[in-house]
């Protein structure tokens, strides 16, 4: 039951918050609840270390092998932490927004779906939660986003649903082919590991599954939904989208594709590793060309997740651990960036790079935080991004040197898009149409949120050992297969 509460509690809280009579009450309840859930998820470390969370199931396996099963390993648990933390921060950041109960309820619903995805071990429930996550996001973008939200919400759902359908067909094909090969109906992820499916059927299944996951990450040709969705979503929505939802795709690769088809994954290394590198470079190049701050951050997402993909498909323990760590890092730093841009937008109602200037002198605290988180995103040694990226590239170096070299270029490009943007907003002289005059600096609530992030960034950067201890067993177990 312990794991079930992780998703059931937010789902129930969603209903309660939605039905609350007053907005203030809803807001407060939602925030308190998400804090509580975060604490609970941290507490789960104790039973996890005792090995109690390995499996949790209910009911009996139906005739076709579907059964309610949950389990977590280190990577999944860390992603649950990330989701819970980001929910708290998003809710806190939106504190002043004038929104109905449904806003707070949607975030709780999203949290429930995310927890379900990360904890699921039966593929049916994995898929169920995967798709459920789309609905709250649709409403978050559509109801409380900015000007282009009407179109962006529909585009987001339809695009990602296409990926989901591919995923569905892949999963069904997997289960059916497994049955044909072994005579056993099962949807259990661990039972399906190293399934003896081979030949063209296996290739098609792999392709379908990979496509489904790739749309979510997003991988280069399928990334079109990301900039629009991120730009039009409200700040809190972008944080959750970038921080957690994109990880679902990588998690899918990790939990489903690699264990089930280890040989095919090894064969696919050049393709998927190459696509990862394309992500890194393409994302960075596009980010350099942006003039809208939010869109810029969206493209940095693409770039960072390219690193994760590269690390993942290196199929080494270091690479996979690095990818998992980078997932957390990206959640923290990109989440932080979105929060910062959101705070700026809240005050000035503008997001263009060239709309500001001289903010360093007017709002020094804001400038400090922005600089810090931006440097973490770029990968400055001593901060978390550096550790993650290095591990990914180190893992890849064992597998394929050319890809590693290209990845290294990506790290340089990161500075190329980050620093000029910072300069334009904070140091450049303010132009005539600038929104800079009259912008207030961060208040206490915002500073608290950002201090939390900064602390975690520093901790992961300077002392990643505890987190790595969590991630490494899972990663090496995965790599051995």
């Amino acid at each position, binding site marked *: 039951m312990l794991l079930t509460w992780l998703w059931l509690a937010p789902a129930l809280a969603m209903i309660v918050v939605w039905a609350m009579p007053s907005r203030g009450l809803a807001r407060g309840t939602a925030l308190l609840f998400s804090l509580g859930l975060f604490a609970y998820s941290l507490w789960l470390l104790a039973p996890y270390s005792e090995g109690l969370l390995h499996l949790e199931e209910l009911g009996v396996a139906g*005739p076709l092998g*579907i059964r309610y099963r949950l389990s977590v390993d280190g990577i999944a648990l860390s992603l649950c932490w990330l989701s819970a933390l980001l929910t708290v921060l998003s809710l806190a950041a939106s504190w002043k927004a004038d929104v109905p109960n449904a806003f707070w309820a949607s975030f709780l619903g999203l949290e429930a779906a995310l927890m379900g995805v990360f904890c699921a071990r039966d593929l*049916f429930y994995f898929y*169920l939660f995967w798709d459920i996550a789309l609905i709250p996001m649709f409403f978050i973008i*559509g109801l409380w986003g900015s000007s282009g939200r009407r179109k962006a*919400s529909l585009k987001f759902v339809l695009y990602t649903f296409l990926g989901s359908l591919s995923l*569905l*067909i892949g999963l*069904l094909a997997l289960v*059916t082919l497994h049955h044909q090969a072994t005579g056993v109906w099962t949807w259990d992820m661990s039972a399906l590991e190293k399934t003896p499916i081979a030949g063209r059927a296996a290739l098609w299944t792999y392709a379908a599954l990979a496509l489904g996951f790739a749309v979510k990450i997003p991988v280069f040709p399928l990334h079109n939904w990301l900039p629009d969705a991120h730009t039009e979503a409200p700040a809190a929505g972008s944080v959750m989208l970038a921080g957690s939802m994109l990880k679902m795709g990588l998690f899918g690769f990790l939990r489903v594709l690699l264990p089930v088809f280890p040989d095919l994954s090894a064969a696919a290394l050049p393709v998927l590793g190459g696509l990862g590198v394309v992500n890194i470079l393409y994302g960075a190049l596009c980010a350099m060309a942006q003039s809208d701050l939010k869109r810029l951050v969206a493209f940095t997402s693409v770039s960072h997740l390219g690193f994760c993909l590269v690390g993942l498909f290196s199929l080494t323990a270091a690479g996979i651990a690095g990818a998992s760590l980078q997932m957390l890092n990206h959640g923290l730093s990109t989440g932080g960036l979105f929060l910062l841009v959101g705070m700026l937008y809240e005050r000035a109602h503008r997001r263009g790079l060239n709309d500001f200037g001289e903010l360093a002198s007017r709002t020094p605290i804001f400038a400090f935080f922005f600089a810090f988180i931006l440097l973490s995103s770029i990968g400055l040694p001593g901060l978390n991004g550096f550790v993650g990226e290095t591990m990914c590239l180190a893992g890849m170096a064992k597998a394929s040197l050319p890809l590693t070299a290209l990845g290294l270029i990506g790290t340089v490009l990161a500075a190329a898009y980050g620093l000029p943007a910072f300069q334009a907003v904070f140091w450049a002289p303010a132009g005539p149409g600038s929104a800079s005059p009259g912008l207030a600096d961060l208040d206490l609530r915002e500073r608290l949120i950002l201090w939390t992030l900064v602390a975690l960034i520093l901790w992961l950067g300077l002392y990643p050992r505890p987190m790595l201890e969590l991630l490494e067993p899972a990663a090496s177990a995965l790599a051995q297969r």
Partner: protein
Amino acid sequence: MNALTPVPLSLLAPEIAVTLALAAALAVGMKSRPSNGLLARAFGALGVLAGLILFFWGPAYSDTWLLRSGGVARAWQVFFHLAALFFLAAHEARGERPVALLLGALLGMDLLAAANDLFALFIGLELMSLPLYLLVYGLRPDKRKLEAAVKYFFTGGAASGLFLFGLSVWYAETGTTALAPGGLPSPGTSLALALMGSAALFKIGAVPFHFWLPDVYEASEPELSAFMSTAVKAAGVLLLMLLSIGHSSFDPLGGSGAAFPNLGAWLPAVSAATMTYGNLMALRQRSVRRLLAFSSIAHAGVLLAALWVWQDGGHGTELSTLWFYLGAYLFMNTGAFLFLALSGISEVEQLKGYGARAPWPAAFFALMLFSLGGVPPTAGFLAKFYVIWDLLKGSGAWLAAAVALNSLLGLGYYLSLVRTMTLDEPGPRTPDGSFCPSAAAGLVLLLCAAASLLGFIPEAREWLFTLLTL
């Protein structure tokens, strides 16, 4: 050919109950001058419920030369009775005529389900259709309804004529009108089956024979459209199924008879064409009723795919997918149309910002739309999930891809309806938030919502199968 042995009346107990209710409704209509339909509706509901209970009372399965009961027949009859109950609950009849007509249609459907002889099948088909033509016209004169009713009447008559022609060819070929396998398929029997099958496809609203459907659904009252889109489609699917197996003692738990290969060949193509056509046409509609009509055409396509799965596999348990789809479809479609009836909305423009004015009804409609579109965790998703899975298990991989892509297309317009309802500002034609269902209608709404949330439980399909084959 069997001797014309008398059919035991106990076989017909449920139908007798419905007939008694029909007589009672007519009697009520004779009594008081301005009769409100409440008493008639009550009698009707009573009869339908009695029929439902009587279905499970008798022996599980029995078979005569003319009629059979239990097994497949009973499952379908349960669907029909449920759909009729929903209609009676939701319809505000001003008078006893709609109730009587509905009961007549229900009798025809029951007969169609229980038929073991082609003539009985035909009588059932006609008895089902004629009251529906009248029901489309309704009680108050209206040019659109008149046009729709006349259109339905003429095209339905043509379809019935085709059925009769097929029947006569079948008789000429095989020398019997019993619903039995006619030996090896010959050009004559395939022609006969094709003709009779077209009548069935007409009732389903499948692609070459769908032209009447949008106009009829748009013009008739939403609760009648609900009944037609669920019960009549189910009847059509059953008709197609009976024609395709042609075995007189069909029992889902035993083996099925030899399936004619001819019917199977074109079924996937028709299914894919129907789905795609329905979804593509629905994308541009501005009238919600017409949109739902096209969406029901698309769902009919998926139903045909489920039917093909059953026929292709030849196993008894594959029927459970078809039944689950029919059941889920019954609840979600009825819910959607009932929402239209109770809120008075018929154009997409009227949906603008409805969510702001009436949040709970809008949430209900959104749930129905999500279920129709196949978004987890709704029952509609689970139904499509099983259909796609069965297709992949069999030999229909491309049809599975077609179903998946079509559900994406469907989501396009379902989601845009939700978007209009929740994201836009209330427009000039948006009705105010008054949404007062009667107690019975409210109960139906709750049932629909509850059923649509079943997607969390994959075992629901097995439960339904067990329930229907009790």
